[in-house]
């Protein structure tokens, strides 16, 4: 593997671990998205996904279940994408 491919594989692996959360609901929303969709996202959407992962579990759950809108309006679009791939 060349170093760029290796870096990208490492980033993905790190991301998969960050998607292991304290709630089953989050595991089921995030892990398939990383495995099946993340690679095809634009750089901007990838960045938004990383921002979303910075949220605490409870807050993240409420956003993804549409119970509370995210404080950052820019994340609405990535939330819709995650929901549509479940």
């Amino acid at each position, binding site marked *: 593997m060349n170093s760029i491919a290796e870096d990208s594989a490492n980033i993905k692996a790190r991301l*998969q*671990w960050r998607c*292991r959360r*304290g709630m089953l*609901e989050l595991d089921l929303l995030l892990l398939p998205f990383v495995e099946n969709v993340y690679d095809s996202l634009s750089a901007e959407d990838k960045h938004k996904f990383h921002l979303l992962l910075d949220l605490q579990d*409870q807050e993240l759950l409420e956003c993804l279940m549409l119970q509370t809108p995210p404080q950052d309006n820019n994340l609405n679009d990535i939330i819709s994408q995650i929901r549509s791939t479940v």
Partner: protein
Amino acid sequence: MSSSIPVRRFDTLVIGAGGGGLRAALQLAQADAHVAVVSKVFPTRSHTVAAQGGMNAALANVLPDNWHWHMFDTIKGSDYLADQDAVEYMCRAAPRLVVELEHAGVPFSRLDNGKIYQRPFGGQSQNFGGDQAARTCAAADRTGHAILHSLYQQNIHAKTHFFDEYLALDLIYDDEGTILGAVVMEIETGETMVIEAKATLLATGGAGQIFRTNTNAHINTGDGMGMALRAGIPLQDMEFFQFHPTGIAGKGMLITEGARGEGGYLLNKDGERFMERYAPNAKDLASRDVVSRAIYTEVKEGRGCGPNADHVMLKLDHLGMDVIQKRLPGIRSTIQTFLHIDPASESIPVYPTAHYTMGGIPTNRHGQVVAPLGQTAEETVQGLYAVGECACVSVHGANRLGGNSLLDIVVFGRAAGNHIIDYLKENRYHRPMADDSIDKAMARLSRWGQKGEGESVRQLKDELKKTMEDFCGVFRTDEILAEGVDKVIALEARLQDARLQDHSKVFNTARVEALELENLMDIALATVCSAHARKESRGAHSRIDYPDRDDERWLKHSLFFKEGRKLDYKPVRMKPLTVDSFPPKARVY
């Protein structure tokens, strides 16, 4: 080999950063002990965060209450398998712990008079089995989240040292069986490290992932229980696993009893309201085990729904949009998110889901791990403690009451912290390291470096979880369990032939999953063997062929040892600390 591994030294090593581990770490750090906490995920992503219900304490803010009634309810709920000294200790401590958490910033919901609000939960009574009590304190529906964050912030303030995203591999122990710390692996780099400690506390949570359909986060792989088994320590009462009858089929998330309480009911593929046959009076509101077994039976006898006929349907649409939106908004949003259907217009596919591990690493009420290692049934394992769902203290016995798990982790986390402080005063120096024990842990890790073709870890894990669901789930007979034991033993043998395809070091999650699978396999075997051996029905362990509780033969704790798959038993501690014992009675609600 062991000489090349970096070593860090602490007074105490805490493995697991949920509520139990963090409460113990806080007690220690505030007493100026040098504490390390190892967590495989970032601490505030521990499974405690998912505990939404609340925490029981006899504050009597809403209805009359006292700790002695709470003690009675817990022992009755446990089907008399709980140790009564530990239950008394927990129920007495509960009010103080709630106040302490509140002072630390946990925003408990309040009554208009300013006192902490308390909600009624199943199994709570006034006056030893009388009217419903209201004993559960909650911070809205985010109690676990609030407690976990508060404890984490306090630990940061108290200078607890965190090793985030480190996986604990194995305990280190010397020839006398004293625990000296653990071998851990940094997940990011794949590098190993020895953490030496005078005292080690396991707080790694439950093992819901041994079952296919479960409510647990993927991280709940019972790592501490696996480590204990490999160190020669038995697991206690593993046959007692709490199932909830209505999880979303194939996914596991819980649909609360409230859905049936509001008038929802279950249907098989013929559209029959089948609970009328199993429980003519209570119907869909019969107790959890009855509803779970009925669903299993419908599916097993070919009346399941869906293309694989593997679930039944929960009907809510007749309740109307207004009732669903007003009374069950959380359920509606879960269903809409994961099934893309609206329960106001379509039925929900459901199946029993594994929820809570009542069994675990045997401890006394100080959190010290105890095992029949020499002359008596409860000798302390020097230097080792365990708290929370990975432990079996035992306050939940054969069945846990709602609201008692958050209480368990803070009460015994604190108790273990206090006991370790005293232990450290008497054990001021680190003992000599046991290199052979380190080598053993390293061999377990390096075995996964073998290359070539072999069984797939993912495939074995799926087969194990399906096997446990089918042969050690809610429907248990001698025949089914015996087959389950054989099947898990066969899977365990195949695990030796499993190989990884990815041998990279950085964030190699495949390797982490392989190490987790070894833990799951050991725990599954402990569970199915213990369940096969217990020939009675008690609490969550329900045998069709032995439908009654048998106190004469079975009022005792099971102990499963990995070595030789040996089972042993020890008496239940029936004598409380100060009050009279609650003798076993028929458990009627």
